[in-house]
């Protein structure tokens, strides 16, 4: 925290008031209901939510208030009134009027509420049930007819609505509008018939819809996948971190008898507040997929994988690796501890810097950027930003909580957002972003055109920037010259941690450059080895293309890298550490099963650089984290790394600390020439939609039902040139192959065509061999 921040925080005016006879001092603007919480006084409530604008709708939190001796004539909703000096509040604990008012409201809330708690998902963790017990009348006096509705209504494939349970608190509708910017659920009708609903042809397909289920104070909104599956008191909850992206969400994983039944957003004000995205919430079945690997496997003489014991498998792996010219592919989803294990294993056991975590498009310029340019932006900087610049980064699809944080400020303060992208995505439209329409390959000019950045501005660059030569150099220059904060936001949860762990060809743990002899000495000392290899290692693509004899591979899909990666790797001796059968296990000589995230402890580093520790949610699992396996393998080879547990890896990495010596400037890479296209051609642009064919979403049909349609986006003029209208089939092709999808006519740069990178019927490396910045043919299909 900077001194400036401290001083502004100290400048907040403090207010002292009295609640139920106790004095409490809180910052100006604090609502009575929250000042009471500070004293441990719980005022019952339904519509109140600290992250939503006050509604004052349910009236459950009525209290008696007087200010400087003047009493309000009637009880006030404590969720709408900020404290004032001289205010005296009497809650239900000390005011019979407030107590009767609250009991009266509770009785009214219950007259139309069904008594179906025994079959309701919320039963046992229901604010209505709990508060009816704590603050309600013993018995209802209602003898009339209850309101009923047809039930349940599927407002999307993943959310069900039971309207008769709804207390019309409007938390869900306010969330959708104020937090997610997806006003697809609204309050409809009026009076006693008021109800939550969708427009009939437009389901609640928000990336954030699960939050409404979580904040619903009754059982009106339930998740399709969890409905009727468990009682809350049978679940064991563990705080966890989300493995799906680099946003860094705190999570809660609820397990019953060794099986994950649901995941919820955890609370962390400095990261995800109380929200998460639907992928984080509802994509976890991969860990119990049928193709889960449960024992080590060794490829036999006939080329078949056979089950083996751990000693057999480790011996086979060691035999193939020992004395081989080898490399390591870590994958983007490793925990910091696992990545550290791979990093140390490469250097100490294999004696090489041939290690890379990048399982996607990448460049040497990126490597240089990641090892020399400091990224210092945080969520808090977004909260205070005057201007957010997005460069080859679609936060809603690629880091959804970053999106929510920017949207929050757009909604609250209408901050300026600039997006350098090929098209106006739904996300950038919601952010009301000033779009600098840019054909892939032309980003440098667009980055150079950004002006009026200040020290309060935040530049967020995505991993796709590596796909354009010169872009990251231009970003570094922009930030250096403007003083703006910089964030590099990769998609995957493990990338920032892998950088910290030195799982890359030019750096060692703690951001130490291999080229720096002093840095090498640091690490050699920490690892108690005589020396470390000094030559910069090979990158992912180079390892694949190389004549290395052996490669140790963590969670990597070769189809994320290049079309021939699998074939090339198949010529080498592959040791695969995997949770499920994959393209890599198909070609591996030895397969070593490892633990899924819920089965192990560890930590990720979010895009801010903040460590997100988690413990095993499924404690009974016999599966072990990669670092444990890799350490056994090192032992077997005879060059131990001594990391027998996750904790030992964490402690060792922490003790090494970050490099505090000087670092070279990033080398400036100039952009290459831009492409010209003929009328039937276009430059390919793509990114991954949040919900797509990603392997961690396997088996989640309800979630997939809310994915955005797989469409090819073309400009209006291209549509008229091709003679197609919205939803007509369009074919994008090159010498490698083709993708044919319905088209959407959008606000896209004229020479560009956008195709989803990894969605239904559109997996670009598989279908086109390239993902972006390449000339393709576009035709009416």
């Amino acid at each position: 925290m900077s001194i400036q921040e401290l001083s502004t925080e100290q400048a907040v005016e403090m207010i002292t008031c009295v609640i139920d006879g106790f004095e409490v001092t809180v910052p100006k603007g604090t609502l009575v209901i929250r000042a009471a919480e500070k004293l441990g006084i719980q005022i019952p409530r339904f519509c109140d939510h600290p992250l939503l604008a006050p509604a004052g709708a349910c009236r459950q939190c009525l209290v008696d208030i007087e200010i400087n001796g003047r009493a309000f004539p009637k009880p006030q909703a404590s969720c709408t009134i900020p404290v004032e000096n001289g205010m005296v509040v009497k809650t239900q604990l000390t005011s019979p009027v407030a107590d009767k008012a609250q009991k009266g409201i509770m009785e009214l809330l219950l007259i139309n509420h069904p008594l179906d708690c025994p079959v309701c998902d919320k039963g046992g963790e229901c604010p209505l049930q709990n508060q009816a017990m704590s603050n309600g009348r013993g018995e209802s006096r209602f003898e009339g007819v209850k309101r009923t509705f047809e039930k349940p209504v599927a407002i999307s494939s993943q959310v069900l609505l039971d309207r008769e349970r709804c207390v019309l608190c409007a938390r869900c509708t306010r969330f959708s509008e104020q937090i997610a910017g997806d006003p697809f659920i609204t309050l409809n009708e009026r009076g006693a018939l008021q109800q939550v609903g969708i427009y009939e042809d437009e389901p609640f397909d928000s990336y954030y819809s699960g939050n409404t289920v979580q904040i619903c104070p009754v059982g009106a909104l339930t998740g399709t996948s969890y409905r009727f599956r468990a009682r809350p008191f049978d679940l064991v909850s563990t705080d966890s971190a989300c493995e799906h992206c680099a946003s860094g969400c705190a999570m809660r994983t609820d397990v019953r008898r060794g099986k994950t039944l649901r995941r919820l957003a955890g609370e962390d004000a400095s990261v995800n507040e109380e929200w998460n995205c639907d992928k984080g919430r509802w994509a976890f079945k991969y860990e119990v997929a049928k193709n889960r690997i449960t024992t080590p496997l060794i490829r036999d003489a006939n080329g078949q994988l056979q089950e083996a014991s751990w000693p057999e498998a480790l011996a086979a792996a060691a035999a193939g690796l020992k004395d081989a010219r080898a490399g390591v592919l870590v994958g983007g989803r490793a925990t910091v501890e696992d990545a550290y294990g791979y990093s140390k294993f490469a250097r100490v056991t294999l004696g090489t810097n041939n290690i890379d975590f990048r399982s996607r498009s990448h460049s040497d310029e990126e490597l240089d950027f990641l090892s020399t340019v400091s990224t210092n932006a945080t969520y808090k900087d977004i909260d205070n930003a005057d201007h957010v610049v997005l460069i080859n980064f679609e936060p809603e699809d690629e880091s959804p909580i970053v999106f929510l944080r920017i949207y929050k400020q757009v909604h609250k303060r209408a901050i300026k957002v600039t997006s350098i992208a090929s098209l106006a995505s739904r996300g950038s439209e919601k952010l009301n972003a000033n779009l600098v329409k840019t054909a892939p390959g032309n980003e440098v000019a667009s980055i150079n055109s950004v002006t009026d950045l200040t020290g309060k501005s935040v530049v967020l660059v995505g991993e796709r920037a590596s796909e354009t030569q010169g872009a990251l150099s231009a970003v570094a220059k922009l930030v250096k010259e403007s003083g703006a904060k910089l964030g590099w936001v990769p998609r995957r949860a493990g990338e920032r941690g892998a950088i910290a762990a030195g799982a890359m060809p030019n750096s060692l743990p703690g951001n130490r450059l291999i080229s720096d002899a002093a840095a090498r000495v640091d690490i050699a000392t920490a690892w108690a080895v005589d020396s470390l290899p000094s030559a910069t290692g090979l990158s992912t693509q180079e390892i694949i293309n190389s004549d290395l004899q052996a490669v140790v591979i963590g969670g990597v899909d070769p189809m994320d890298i290049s079309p021939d990666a699998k074939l090339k790797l198949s010529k080498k001796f592959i040791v695969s550490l995997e949770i499920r059968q994959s393209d890599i296990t198909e070609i591996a000589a030895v397969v070593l099963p490892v633990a899924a995230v819920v089965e192990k402890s560890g930590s990720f580093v979010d895009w801010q650089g903040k460590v997100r520790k988690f413990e095993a949610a499924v404690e009974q699992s016999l599966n072990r984290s990669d670092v444990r396996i890799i350490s056994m393998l090192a032992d077997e080879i005879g060059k131990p790394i001594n990391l027998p547990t996750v904790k030992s890896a964490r402690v060792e990495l922490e003790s090494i600390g970050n490099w505090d010596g000087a670092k070279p400037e990033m080398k400036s890479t100039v952009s290459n020439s831009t492409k010209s296209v003929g009328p039937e051609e276009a430059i390919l642009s793509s990114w991954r939609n949040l919900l797509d064919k990603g392997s961690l979403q396997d088996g989640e049909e309800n979630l997939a039902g809310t994915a955005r349609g797989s469409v090819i986006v073309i400009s209006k003029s291209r549509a008229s040139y091709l003679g197609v209208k919205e939803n007509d089939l369009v074919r994008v092709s090159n010498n490698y192959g083709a993708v044919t999808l319905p088209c959407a006519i959008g606000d896209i740069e004229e020479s560009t065509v956008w195709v989803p990178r990894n969605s239904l019927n559109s997996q670009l490396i598989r279908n086109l061999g390239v993902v972006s910045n390449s000339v393709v043919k576009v035709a009416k299909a």
Partner: protein
Amino acid sequence: MAFTTEQISIMDSIIARYPRKRSAIMPLLHYVQSIDGYVTNEGIELIGQKLELATAEVTAVSTFYTQYKSKPVGEYHVGICTNTLCAVMGGDLIFDAVKEHLGIENDGVTSDGKVSVEHIECNAACDYAPVVMVNWEFYDNQTVQSVKDLVDGARAGNPPAPTRGPKTLRSWKQNSAVLAGISDGLANEGVQAGEPTLLGLKKAKGGA
């Protein structure tokens, strides 16, 4: 029904009345009713597009207000005031008699699509009770017989003129356009005021 270019340009002119376009949602909904007779999905989608709103947001508004209909009403939509004062003075009797006469329930439409009936709340004409509205035109001081005659006339295509309104009763759709702010040029037709409105003035001037 698809909207014509002319209709869409009228919608644009409605939007142009307001400093912020979302404000145009109510007149646009009236306007959709003037074309389709009720709030159709096509209308909701077009309004959403025009105002850059989610269709759910348009639905939220259209279902809040009772004058927006989610299904077709009659060419002559008859509203019978059954709020306390009119009800007591005869509105209840009129309402029951008319439903029976037409063989429809509240919110029902006759099979020929000519007449629909709805009981309505106070329509700000209590000094003319019992009050009946047809396409939101005043029919003052009604009786059971007068309303039967009214609906019979409407079904025959010959409804009587409103008490305080234009010389001829216009259709539901035509009047919906007026509510959308599109003039039909009939403002000058009809009386300036009925007898009860003028009673105080008359008494003040010493009249009987």
